[in-house]
């Protein structure tokens, strides 16, 4: 049987990889890819705690479903913003989008 700690460490590594992607990529779409990895690691944690807690208490899976919905909302708004910025500035590099700077 797989111990709970393996799932937790797996999702911790996945979260850190996503965090690295968010902090170090220059392309806006790549930053959103990192956020997707982080949200997935959260879902792995929720499912693992559901399985290793009381199985008949379904709360962990319900939370994971809500995270799915929020992730879909976040990625649709994020990509719409990226496309809108690309139309205006003709770039998707995060450093070059400095319209709020003066």
């Amino acid at each position, binding site marked *: 049987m797989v111990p709970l700690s393996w799932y937790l460490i797996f999702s911790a590594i996945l979260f850190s990889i996503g965090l690295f992607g968010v902090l170090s990529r220059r392309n806006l*779409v*790549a930053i959103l890819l990192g956020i997707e990895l982080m949200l997935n690691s959260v879902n792995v944690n929720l499912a693992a705690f559901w399985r290793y807690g009381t199985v008949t208490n379904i709360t962990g899976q319900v939370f994971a*479903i809500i995270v799915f919905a929020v992730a879909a909302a976040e990625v649709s708004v994020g990509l719409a913003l990226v496309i809108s910025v690309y139309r205006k500035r003709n770039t998707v590099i995060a450093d070059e989008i400095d319209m709020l700077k003066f």
Partner: protein
Amino acid sequence: MTIDQIIFLVVAVATLIAAFRVVTTGNLIHAAFWLIAALFGVAAIFAILHASFLAVVQVVVYIGAISILFIFAVMLTRKDMRDQGPQLNRNWGFGAFLAALALVGLVFLVHGWSGVTKTAPAFPSEFDAVSALGNALVSPDAYVLPFEVASVLLVAALVGAVYVAYNRK
């Protein structure tokens, strides 16, 4: 080492390699395809955890919808997809440091917690997790309100996305 552990390790290592390629590969369309591989790995983890509905939703929503959305976004912003210059910003070393710090902190927390050596209780064979989940999502005693709020959030976000990306010309 039991067969369960070997399957878990194979899936986990494949997922982590795919995730690492997502954040390091230069070509964005390849990064999107590596993301699909990583999401498949997470779906397999859900299947190992007996969360069958989550595994199916992971494939349908993440791989079927969100990854395709990413690929479309990469193609719509294609001019910058070819590797012009570095794909990592100047502060990538600091980002790697912060990510490593987060990893060390999380592993430290996991190891300091007493419940971590817990093994899974046997899955009750008569328990139908999918119908229990469906009942919980629409039952007024359980989670109907978060479920409806999430659907309103999704509608609002999609209307907002259409408005933001609309081409006014």
